[in-house]
């Protein structure tokens, strides 16, 4: 015989399981609160979120959409339009390698091949040790001192294969 007093309440899940850490969730909301009242707030908020937690995951898209009274599709559309916003966690450092013409004229294609081989990855991925995420970029404005790359926000010029190995070597040696 069933006992009616043991009726269970099953919560309705309206959002996908939340993979964001609680602290990250709080920071996303904090950024939204801080920036949402300015005109055209979405890009500043996306920058703020990526600065705060390193990426803009779909869980953050839900929160931002709620705060700005936009649909998730609208926010998702903006996030994916821009190359800079990332939807997955990056490695400890992000290396943007220039692929544009001025760097090509000084061997950027060879440097790109060397970088991919050394790190064992293609663009948009992270080395196995979690140290480096490799991204392409189309011009860093260092066109007279190519080939160029940027490590996080630090611009580097005249990057030979050897200099690349030195720069990356020091990043990989860091203790995480």
């Amino acid at each position: 015989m069933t006992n009616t007093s043991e009726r269970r309440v099953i919560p309705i899940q309206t959002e996908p399981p939340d993979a964001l850490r609680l602290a990250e969730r709080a920071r996303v909301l904090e950024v939204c609160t801080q920036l949402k009242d300015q005109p055209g707030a979405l890009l500043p908020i996306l920058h703020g979120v990526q600065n705060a937690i390193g990426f803009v995951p779909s869980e953050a898209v839900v929160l931002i959409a709620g705060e700005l009274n936009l649909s998730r599709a609208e926010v998702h559309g903006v996030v994916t339009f821009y190359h800079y916003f990332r939807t997955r966690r990056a490695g400890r450092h992000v290396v943007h390698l220039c692929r544009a013409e001025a760097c090509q004229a000084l061997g950027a294609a060879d440097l790109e091949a060397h970088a991919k081989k050394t790190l064992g990855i293609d663009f948009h991925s992270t080395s196995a040790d979690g140290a480096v995420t490799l991204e392409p970029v189309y011009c860093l404005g260092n066109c007279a001192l190519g080939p160029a790359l940027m490590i996080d926000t630090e611009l580097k010029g005249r990057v030979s294969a050897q200099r690349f190995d030195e720069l990356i070597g020091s990043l990989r040696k860091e203790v995480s």
Partner: protein
Amino acid sequence: MKPVRIFVPRDAAARSVGADETARAIAEEAGRRGIEVHLVRNGSRGMLWLEPLVEVESDGKRYGFGPIQAAQVADLFDQGFCEPSTAAARAHASAHGPTEDLAYFKRQERLSFARVGIIDPESIEAYLQHGGYAGLKTALGMQPAQIVESVTASGLRGRGGAAFPAGIKWKTVLGAPGDQKYIVCNADEGDSGTFSDRMLMEGDPLTLVEGMTIAGIATGATRGYIYLRWEYPDAHRALETAIGAAYAAGYLGANIQGSGKRFDLEVRLGAGAYICGEETSLLESLEGKRGQVRFKPPLPALAGLFGKPTVINNVITFASVPIILERGAPFYQHFGMGRSRGTLPMQLAGNIKRGGLVEVAFGMTLRELLYDFGGGSLSGRPIRAVQVGGPLGAYLPESQFDTPLDYEAFAAIKAMLGHGGVVVFDDTVDMAAQARYAMEFCAVESCGKCTPCRIGSTRGVEVIDRLTSGTNAAAQEVLLRDLCETLTYGSLCALGGLTPFPVLSALDHFPEDFDKTPRARASA
């Protein structure tokens, strides 16, 4: 003894090859030797092959030493570089004598870059001492229509690439009804081979702030945005500092220098989309949307940012305004040739021995720029092709190097001057690969609004691949030219519309590179 003034650039390009380390080494070495040094972090002089270029001041002159890596600093002190005019210091292998006597620098006509590399960009006092805000002062004593008239009379054309007369844009905004108007600066300098915007924003950011403020007063706009690409973090810091200083000194805000005029300014960051350098796409992005191109009309001057009348100009356009107001339209108009008036900061990039920034009046030939200034290729091999005007600019063969730097002269050879970037390639370049890259770039960066650009660019890569592999080559070439025509006439904006420039110029001037069949290689 007075402390020795030593300048080490804080420009991102200089830092990319070790300027911070050099500056630190100088401070440490001076401390060790008990020499009192006043270290100034200036912008770059634009002679980028000499970076890090250390300058030491003596008797009002600045003596250049470069490139100087941190490891060479002790040796410089040993040679007495703190007294740079002495024979011993001048005998140093890296000594160049007074920087301003170097031919590369001396031959330039620096108007918008007059202060870049000279002053500490973080100091509003230095800006004022070097003639800063003289243009604004003049503007505050004029009627808005007079300011617009002055800009029109100067002949200043938009320096972003399209070369539209700035005065006409301003006049439209001045005459447009609207409770709120905006000034927007396009600092999304995405063209490969260009870095003049970056150098100006890092080396003399207040010139841009002043130019935008004048634009606001001239058109009745009270709010400005600088749309800056994320790839320029150093410029971002420099602009934030400059804007903060301008507010503190009463050059921005509710009552500019007691005039009762208001102008507020802030920086917004882009997020890695080349298309956002296109003005309507930039406005969409500023509004917090995908950077998709808008139909024109309505013109941004009538319905721009948030649907309001908006002046949108490039960094160098705004930075040219203060001197026009300060010295008068005839002064500026006097430089240049034909309908291209004033100066254009050219940027020498790629495989070039002396790469850097060269601000000259319109009219100099490309050859003078490449050889007299640039000194030929970095590799020492012959220069085979030069791409002028960014990734949408044509590739020019040696036979076209005598073209003068002038908007119309370039248009006449189906090329464009654009934002003034010159990318040099030596004879190892594969022009078919460059043509393929142009299509690939268009495919990566297309906003997706127009079919010819969105799909045509991908098809273009495929057609070039078939062409170079020799699969029915003659028919592929017909197809490629047809596709380029569709792109040219079927795209809303310059990305799709101009991608055929690099593709067809490569095909027309370097057809031999497209035939990669074994027979062609054997006969080559």
